[in-house]
């Protein structure tokens, strides 16, 4: 009696139950793994948005602002103290920056789209730099794989945003629009004279 073993039916039933349990377990674990990947990707996207927006706000908000310039030099230096150059879907400005190989100081910066990346380039702000040589500037990619990068400018509170802006004129507000992964980031609006 104790040596009887299992019947075929019993073995088949137990194998079926076991395989059902295994199927449930494995599919549950797979769901866990894929949602983990999704969560990480989304967190990274959120971090990137927050980081890049805040960085640009800080860097443009601390730009050497136009307006009444109090010059301390007695010789009446003719070198303009402010610098802002609007281009189509790019712009350059002057701001203090505490990163980079130099411990700090003023830099000429340019934000533009290069291929599908949003790139920040910077040069040390030296005397008599008339035409910044951007191709020799240090470059750093801020955002990869962007599908849209648009800039718009305006100088009056209720005025319209304009994408074409005279290069010599410093606008009061800059608006940056970035689209990545098919989604538009919230427009980054910065008050330059703040």
């Amino acid at each position: 009696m104790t040596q009887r073993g299992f019947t075929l039916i019993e073995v088949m039933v137990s194998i079926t139950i076991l395989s059902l349990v295994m199927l449930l377990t494995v599919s549950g674990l797979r769901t866990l793994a894929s949602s983990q990947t999704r969560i990480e990707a989304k967190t990274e996207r959120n971090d990137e948005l927050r980081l890049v927006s805040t960085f640009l706000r800080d860097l443009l908000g601390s730009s050497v602002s136009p307006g009444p310039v109090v010059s301390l030099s007695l010789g009446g230096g003719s070198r303009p103290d402010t610098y802002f150059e609007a281009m189509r879907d790019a712009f350059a400005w002057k701001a203090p920056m505490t990163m980079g190989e130099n411990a700090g100081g003023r830099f000429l910066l340019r934000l533009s789209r290069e291929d599908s990346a949003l790139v920040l380039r910077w040069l040390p702000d030296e005397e008599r730099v008339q035409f910044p040589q951007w191709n020799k500037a240090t470059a750093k990619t801020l955002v990869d794989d962007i599908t849209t990068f648009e800039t718009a400018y305006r100088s009056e509170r209720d005025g319209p945003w304009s994408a074409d802006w005279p290069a010599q004129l410093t606008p009061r507000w800059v608006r940056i629009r970035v689209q990545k992964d098919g989604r538009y980031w919230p427009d980054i609006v910065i008050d330059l004279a703040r």
Partner: protein
Amino acid sequence: MFLRRASRGFSLLELLVAISILGLSLGALLRSSTTATRNVATDERYVYAVELSKSLLAQYSQVPLDGFANSGETSGGFRWSVDARPLPRGETSRLGPGALHDIRVAVSWRDGIRERRVELASVVPGE
């Protein structure tokens, strides 16, 4: 007798208990990952709302002398409102009326059944 008991195998009840424990722990794992997914989605909306509020605050960094109010909704479903009122002036203040405004930027959105909201406040010059 002892040897026979030791090689007896599992009873049906034991197997059922073991499988149900497995099922319960898997269920708990899945639930926590669902919560994490939802929290990340909430976080994303908060990031959007805060960036939108910062942009609105920058956009209205200068308001008319007698105050200003505006509101709207983005295509992403965020409702925003901007409200600027002149700050009360002290008796000895040398600033003109409406020189400084209290500004409030509020962004709210619907997250499932919940209504979420971000509010930024600042002081801006009027002109």
